């Protein structure tokens, strides 16, 4: 991208974000920048806080401390009108993102259009079909979600997230559970949307192969902290054993502390660490 040579626009800026669920600290001082037109991939073990971070980025949740800025503004501090304007520029495909079961696929996809635009109905219908085309669901607009397979629902939810060609797209595990051919096609689509529309894309994924295929930079999250943010090359070359283990899909050889282990088994201590 030739925009990269000029001063790139900082689309997302996170500083020292700390978040708790109850007493448990889930995000422990996360700082991250994402630049315009960049594909940033967040990887990390199950329970490391990836989805939590994403929910904070889109202001669904607010941290205990630290700051989040989207396009230079704290999304939680916007008035209703500004928040609506921001939402129009953002697409979100959540993990396990569902569709409303009482509406057809097409009606589900039109919801954001009705909320944010005054487009002609014909235009909306064509937009829906265009997006269903690119996710390989052409002709499915009149079906109910219950009539789709799990992978199809997932693709339809993704199609809905991009229905308005958002400036910033957040996807949580967009290809988890999809067959490899479709997952690769989805990766390709992300790359082409970035190329054609200049989208900034933040993807959470377990699929390392996919991460390396699409990422400009990768952020590795581990127990609520960022271990490293870097290009795919930087990640491959890192000396960090923990990251190498993650990349090699080796589980952590945890040092067994007998006392702590016994306390955990006896329910005297909270399980604090998720296995990678």
């Amino acid at each position, binding site marked *: 991208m030739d925009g990269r040579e000029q001063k790139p626009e900082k689309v997302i800026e996170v500083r020292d974000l700390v978040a708790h669920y109850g007493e448990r600290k889930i995000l422990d001082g996360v700082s991250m920048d994402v630049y315009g037109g960049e594909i940033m991939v967040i990887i990390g073990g199950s329970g490391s806080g990836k989805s939590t971070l994403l929910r904070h980025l889109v202001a669904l949740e607010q941290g205990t401390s630290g700051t989040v800025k989207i396009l230079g503004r704290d999304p939680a501090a916007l008035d209703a009108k500004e928040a609506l304007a921001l939402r*129009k520029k953002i697409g979100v495909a959540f993990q396990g993102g569902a569709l409303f079961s009482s509406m057809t696929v097409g009606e589900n996809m039109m919801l954001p259009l009705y909320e*944010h*635009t*005054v*487009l*002609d109905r*014909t*235009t*909306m219908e*064509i*937009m829906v079909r*265009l*997006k269903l*085309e*690119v996710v390989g669901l052409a002709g499915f607009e009149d079906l109910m979600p219950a009539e789709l397979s799990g992978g199809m629902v997932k693709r339809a939810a993704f199609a809905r997230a991009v*229905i*308005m*060609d958002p400036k910033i797209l957040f996807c949580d595990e967009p290809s988890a559970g999809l067959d490899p051919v479709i997952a690769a096609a989805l990766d390709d*689509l992300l790359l*082409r*949307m970035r*190329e*054609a*529309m200049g989208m900034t894309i933040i993807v959470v994924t377990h699929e390392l192969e996919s991460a390396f295929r699409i990422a400009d930079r990768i952020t590795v999250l581990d127990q609520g902290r960022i271990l490293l943010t870097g290009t795919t090359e930087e990640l491959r070359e890192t000396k960090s054993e923990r990251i190498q283990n993650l990349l090699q899909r080796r589980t952590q050889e945890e040092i067994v502390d007998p006392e702590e282990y016994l306390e955990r088994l006896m329910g005297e201590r909270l399980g604090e660490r998720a296995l990678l």
Partner: protein
Amino acid sequence: MIYRIKDENGTTVVAFEGEVDLESSPEARRILLDCLGRTSSLLVDLSAVTYIDSSGIASLVESFQNARKAGRHFALVAVSGSVLSVLRLSRLDKVFTIYDTLEDGLARAG
């Protein structure tokens, strides 16, 4: 988005300029459908379009299909690189009649 309409020997040329997005595409759509009601041959000059989103693309699709049904000539000319990559996203570069330059388009529309 701004636009200009001119007549070249019976062929109507609409040139859009700037961004055809959620805000401006309803106007683009209205202009295209209006023109189709008044001409038998319409060229859409996209050389100065810096950004088009799928609402703009949808307006082009609707106009093209209307033109075909009404037996009118409809083509895109001088499609800018950014528009072309958006057309390619949904393989519409293989659907529209596209001429490299306005001159080509006019010669073929004649």
